[in-house]
């Protein structure tokens, strides 16, 4: 009997060591992939950082209306943020390649699904970026137009317009990422409708006093045809 026990133990030890030995190349490949990706990430991030600093990426971004990106960036530099994101992407790619080297069906399926999801992430980032620029443009247009029309609530209108665009953009990005699309659509509909309804109430009822004061200022003005309009600009 002891001989059978010894045989069983020898058999299981041999099986375990064999399986471990089969996994070792995978571990080595993973380690090598990680090291190479870390080195590549460091080099490419440095190149990207220098390139972006050279084309004054931070100031151009601010001019395009995406200055809020600076608040989320390390040392308030979007160029550093972009180079860090590039580095992370390269390291994650190296990790996935290393994981795929284990040559197991589960890990292969996992890696394939991750790569299949990458275009959705890229699309969502583009949607958010464009949405931020459009929101800033719309906010500025509304603000300047409202100030030139002497509307007392110009800033409120501008902020409302900006947040409408941002909410729309975030909802589009979440749908693109396929994150609870049904819930997002419903929540967006409720939120967007709520914002529009609130703005309408604010103008019609909630800020009645503001509108009344604004209109009273206009009606109290002396007839402008006689007094104000001596100005001829051209």
């Amino acid at each position, binding site marked *: 009997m002891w001989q059978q026990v010894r045989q069983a133990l020898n058999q299981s030890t041999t099986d375990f060591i064999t399986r471990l030995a089969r996994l070792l190349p995978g571990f080595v490949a993973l380690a090598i992939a990680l090291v190479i990706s870390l080195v590549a990430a460091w080099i490419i991030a440095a190149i990207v950082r220098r390139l972006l600093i050279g084309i004054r990426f931070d100031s151009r971004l601010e001019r395009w209306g995406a200055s809020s990106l600076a608040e989320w960036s390390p040392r308030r530099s979007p160029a550093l943020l972009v180079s860090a994101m590039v580095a992370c992407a390269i390291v994650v790619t190296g990790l996935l390649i290393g994981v795929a080297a284990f040559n197991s069906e589960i890990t292969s399926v996992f890696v394939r699904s991750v790569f299949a999801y990458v275009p959705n992430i890229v699309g969502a980032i583009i949607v958010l970026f464009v949405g931020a620029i459009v929101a800033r443009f719309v906010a500025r247009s509304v603000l*300047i137009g409202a*100030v*030139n029309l*002497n509307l007392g609530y110009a800033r409120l209108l501008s902020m409302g317009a900006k947040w409408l665009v941002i909410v729309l953009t975030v909802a589009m990005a979440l749908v693109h990422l396929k994150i609870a699309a049904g819930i997002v659509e419903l929540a967006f509909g409720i939120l967007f409708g709520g914002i529009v309804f609130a703005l309408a109430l604010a103008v019609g009822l909630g800020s009645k006093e503001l509108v009344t004061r604004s209109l009273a200022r206009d009606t109290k003005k002396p007839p*402008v045809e006689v007094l104000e309009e001596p*100005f*001829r*600009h051209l």
Partner: protein
Amino acid sequence: MAEVTLEAQPVPPWAVKSIEEIAAADIIIGILADLSQNEMAQVCTDLGTLTGNPRIVVLQKHPTASAAQVGDSEPKVQPEGASSENSSASLWVVPWNLQEPEMPSPLATFATACSSLFAAGEKLGVRGCCVVVSNLEYAPPKWVCRLAEPLLDNSFDFVAPRYAVRKFEGLLNNSIIARLTRSLYGRRLQSPMGPDFGVSLSLVQDLSNGNSRNRDGIDGGNLLASLAPRTACENLRVCQTYLGARRNPPADSAAVSSLLSQVLGPVFSNMETNAACWQRVRNSTPVRTLNQTQAIPQQPRTVEVGHSVNSFQQGVRDLQDIWGLVLPPATLLELRKLSRAAAEQHHFPDELWVRIIYDFALAHRLRAINREHLLHSFTPLYLGWLASYARQVEGAGPAAVEERFERLAGVYEAEKPYLVSRWRWPDRFNP
């Protein structure tokens, strides 16, 4: 750098027949103003007195005729009342169909009208083209001849108008355009952007032969804004002639913003195009004035500046973030101090005003923000300056008003080194 050019337009089909019949002319005059029949007859009579037997073609705005009707009408050879024995000129009056429903703005209509006028002028081989847009009052005798004669003599390339000074009229021109043109290009023109003017055919061809289109497109604003700079930079012969007082339509305060955008946009674009020229100019020189200005009765007006001051104060309150991308911190601080003053004590210093103009011109070039946003955000500043000016000249006569603008012109010239240094080294200070 892209330059303002005129695209060579074909002669409109309704005018081809008339132009072919006339074959050749010495001068062509386009009348866009709404002249009554009597006024038009007087114009034709005056033109008939020009010496030298000139052949004159007058394109008269014919707003009610359709293109077919206009094309069918025969050109008049002699106006009523003009005696063929006494007049030395041959005169044709061609109805000028300008109804372009698809035109987006009056300036676009003006640009199309000028293009067709210049095309007809080139076809006729004229020596010069004149454009009359304004309805004038207190006009001197034979005022239309004052635009045509310098071109017929071949003495000048650009005949600019000079109007009677009224303290609350032509404010955009007096506060910015004329002073800026004088400071940049060294020519003391009262109205560098017309709108009534005369140009020699060589200048028209010069505008047409430009290498590339202005990236902002060709429109009336571009054309008017480029005349004075082009003549200054190419050392062409310029004069100005007195035409009386313009009868201006009432201003719509809500449209000030779009007016500023339409006028200042081309002016700033021209600064960018002609940067190499105006940076070399050191001092301004007077331009030959052909006829003396006459005094006209002033219309006494009481001015209410509260609305303009409120607009300015709201601009300072709400547009700080946008102005912060254009103006230096010192200027923003001064504007904030200014906005805290009451309407009765509102005073906009000329030095501050001029620096703001220069900063906006630079921001327009650098595209610090969207150009339309930039020009529209300028409106509260303009209204603030207007309010200050109105307070200063309320009881002043024409001489005092002229002196006031002369002082402003001096400040523009004194602050030019500020503009030149910021233009050449924009990175040295970046708001």
